[in-house]
């Protein structure tokens, strides 16, 4: 009985704390989106849905949403494909397996700002390492930050470099839970490597992949640091995404209501996509299926 009370107390305490540190700012941000305010210290004016109307009529909002989706989807596809591939290699027994596993996870330990600075110094078009390497073979350096495709591509590549290890770690853990007898049985039945992968590995990883794709999707859609550090949304807003747009509006243009409206819409879009995703790929069913 005493233990029950403790559990209830801990539960209520945790929920209250979460409500305070997550729910509080969330409600404040949503409320802010109904006000017009041009500074953090002025008196905000109630404007109702005006900020939403302005934001939804702004082509930059739709451009940012599209950019965010392109960057998020490209990064997730590459991270998952590479992550599963690398995890399968690391799941095999070979000499130095532990060392290679540790090295493979290293980029995940790098602070994002360090990774982005390293990337910038490699790709810097005047002094960068890549420029020197290309010059030594007589090839010119591309000004990556001036073209939409290369700027987006750089963000995707740096994201893949940084967070593929997360996918590797999760998938590696998932691979180790698949009984080896299944593969032995499949081999006896004459199944090749591809069929084993498709009919045993992928179903075995289903629950892991559902969670990994969900988490990576949320994180990439809300990604701010890499984009801001590498391109600040340029060139010509071609790498602007909803988080950078919300930041730009709130902290550079001091359009706090507009920034809050962008952030709220972004939150609603993400929440909607997550609901549909979980409806399509229920995690519990995946566990039972396995």
């Amino acid at each position, binding site marked *: 009985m005493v233990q029950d009370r403790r559990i209830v107390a801990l539960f209520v305490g945790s929920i209250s704390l979460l409500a305070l540190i997550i729910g509080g700012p969330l409600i404040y941000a949503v409320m802010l989106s109904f006000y017009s305010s041009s500074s953090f210290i002025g008196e905000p004016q109630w404007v109702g849905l005006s900020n939403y109307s302005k934001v939804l009529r702004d082509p930059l909002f739709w451009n940012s949403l599209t950019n965010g989706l392109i960057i998020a989807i490209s990064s997730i596809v590459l991270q998952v494909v590479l992550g599963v591939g690398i995890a399968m290699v690391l799941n095999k027994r070979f000499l130095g397996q532990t060392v290679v596993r540790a090295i493979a996870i290293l980029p995940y330990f790098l602070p994002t700002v360090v990774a982005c600075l390293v990337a910038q110094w490699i790709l*810097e078009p005047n002094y960068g390492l890549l420029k020197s390497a290309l010059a030594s073979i007589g090839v010119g350096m591309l000004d990556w930050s*001036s073209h939409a495709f290369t700027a987006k591509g750089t963000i995707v590549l740096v994201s893949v470099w940084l967070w593929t290890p997360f996918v590797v770690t999760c998938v590696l853990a998932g691979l180790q839970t698949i009984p080896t007898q299944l593969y032995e049985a499949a081999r006896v039945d004459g199944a090749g490597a591809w069929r084993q992968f498709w009919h045993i590995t992928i179903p075995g990883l289903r629950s892991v992949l559902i969670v990994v794709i969900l988490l990576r999707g949320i994180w990439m859609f809300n990604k701010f640091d890499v984009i801001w550090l590498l391109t600040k949304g340029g060139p010509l807003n071609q790498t602007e995404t909803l988080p950078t747009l919300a930041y730009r509006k709130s902290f550079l243009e001091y359009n706090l209501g507009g920034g809050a409206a962008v952030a709220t819409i972004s939150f609603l879009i993400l929440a909607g996509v997550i609901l549909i995703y979980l409806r399509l790929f229920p995690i519990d069913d995946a566990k039972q299926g396995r």
Partner: protein
Amino acid sequence: MSIYIPGHKRMAAGLFGMTRRNFLKTAAVVGASVAAPAVRAQSGVTLRFLNPETSVASQAVLKKACDEYESKFGVKIIVDSTPISGTTQKAMAAINAGQSYDIMTAGFIASILQFVQAGVLLPVTDLVKKYDWGKDAAWEYEGENWYYPFDYNLVVNYYRKDLYAQKGLKVPETSDDFLKNCQALTVVNSGNIDVGGCVIPLASDSATNWASFGNMFAEGTQLYDKDWNVVLDQGENVDRATRFLDLYGELYKTMPPGMNAVGYAQLMSLFATGKTAHTLYSGRLVEALEATNPELADQYGIFASPGSSGQKALSYAFDGFCVFKTKQSEEAVKFLQWFVDEHYVDWLLSAWMNNHPSRLDIYENERWKSHPMIKKHWETMMQMKSFIDGDGVTITAIDTSGPSIDMRACNVFNANVMPEMLQQKVLGNTSSADCVAAAAQRIRSLI
């Protein structure tokens, strides 16, 4: 409850094994420690100073001044030095938390106007009116001065005298001359620009807003009329702005790659490392050259941005001290008065070339003039002075454009309308006229 500590006697029951006597003793000591700062604070005033000038030399001057002030007047000043990028937000957060700073060094006009409009700033008109100031340095808003200026950040064109001599070039009088010089000095190797003719930033940020529009202002381009109507795309302004964009398009071909990512630091480093023959910056670049490439510090020259018919203009920013309305405003004003009387020159010399004085009497101050670096770069300093006290050069900026100082021009600055006009021209391959029309339309939607 008791705690066993090896080597000690088991303590008697009590809170965490403490006796009541020990507990009371500890509580008394802790209570006294906690109360001590409050007791000390009651004996004098403590002012809080938000300082975004984070160089070692600037902080040292502030520390020395604050220590001296405390020893003389018993007023403690806590200096919070923080990078300029987050200063405004930090000051606003402090106000919202009920812990406003008393003094702040400000460099963005938008920040000052936001504080004024929120009613949290104290005018320092009486202090400012005691002196003569350079052109547009001591601007007024609603009839008051809201900051005590100390420097200009004029965006001058730097050029390499040695390269000019090698190629037999002259300091450009018109934008055409400037373009020809840039083309003559561009070094291309295997299709890459190894040494750029010039660098004029392009990114959507404050560096581009600050630095890139000298040539546009030299053309006489107006963004607004006297009633704040947008006239960028009307009358003669269309031709002027179009001419400027055409020039920028040609100059862009002489720039090293990466202009879309060039900020304040790269404007200096590209010049200091010989990657460009011209760059744009304030006096800070001279300090950077002395620190990183002293040879080049003897081979640079400066000029104002030329227009197509030889008119000259410079974009600019400024820095100054603001006083917030707090319970201690009176003490803060007293400190500021004392500081500008006693340590203003020390402060200016802590960034000897970047702190290009806006107060005109400083140019006659013997101590300031006798600084070895001011002496060495006297010609440059006097040239910069001629820009701020003569009539030959227009001084204006994106955020000070318009008939008066106003938040509307600042909103255009903050929304990066003008940098995006440049990007449309050179990255979007849009015609100059269309770029101007789009920018004007955007400005209308903002103000």
